[in-house]
């Protein structure tokens, strides 16, 4: 590969990694400044998915000109990216669910709360059920 092409690749790579580091910093600032668990989760998911993908892209562009870079290195990069995309939403969902169910959500900050309406309807159904029927 020509000298100029490698230089362009390096610049693109370092800009990607810079964006990833910036997202990490933004997430940390959000952790400090945001008032409750849900908004902190909102900001904390940015470096975990987008920032990580940008950094992986940067690593890939940076190690591409090296002679001994094999398919396994790029395979590892793709695997890390796929794994982050699959696992971060699952972990965030479970943390938010547990936070809601154990009452760690500030309800004065929630704009709409559809889950609360559903739970309320379910509670009313349980309460209004005539006695004698089985319990759910």
């Amino acid at each position, binding site marked *: 590969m020509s000298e100029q092409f490698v230089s362009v690749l390096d610049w693109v790579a370092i800009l990607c*990694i*810079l964006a990833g*580091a910036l997202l990490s910093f933004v997430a940390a600032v959000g952790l400090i400044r945001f008032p409750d668990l849900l908004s902190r989760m909102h900001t904390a998911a940015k470096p975990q998915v987008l920032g990580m993908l940008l950094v992986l892209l940067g690593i890939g562009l940076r*190690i591409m000109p*090296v002679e001994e870079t094999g398919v396994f290195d790029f395979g590892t990069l793709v695997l890390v990216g796929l794994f982050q995309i699959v696992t971060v939403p699952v972990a965030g969902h*479970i943390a938010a669910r547990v*936070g809601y169910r154990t009452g*760690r959500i500030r309800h004065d900050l929630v704009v709409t709360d559809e889950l609360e309406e559903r739970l309320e309807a379910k509670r009313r159904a349980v309460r209004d059920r005539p006695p004698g029927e089985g319990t759910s």
Partner: protein
Amino acid sequence: MNALWVVIAVLLGVASLLGTARLLLGPSILDRALSVDVLLASALTGLGAYAAFNRDPTILPTLLVLSLLGFVGSISISKFVARRPEEHARPEDTVYPATTEQGESRE
């Protein structure tokens, strides 16, 4: 270009410091778990920046292990919180009574 690497390192360092502050301050255990996740993301980004700086692909499997570890850690902390009975919650874990479930099965 070297200045940009320094900027990346400084950003990650400040991010780690702020995440540690939230880890120490955090009102509930879920906030602490969340800040551990952010710290882990910073560590992943830092390791990636190291690999990119040195053009060194040998530490890429470490990224895989760390991302696995973060997933398992946050899931297990959440499940631990879900199982802890409400009356054992410490007073600093502010429990808003409107949301504690009634008539619903807890998993």
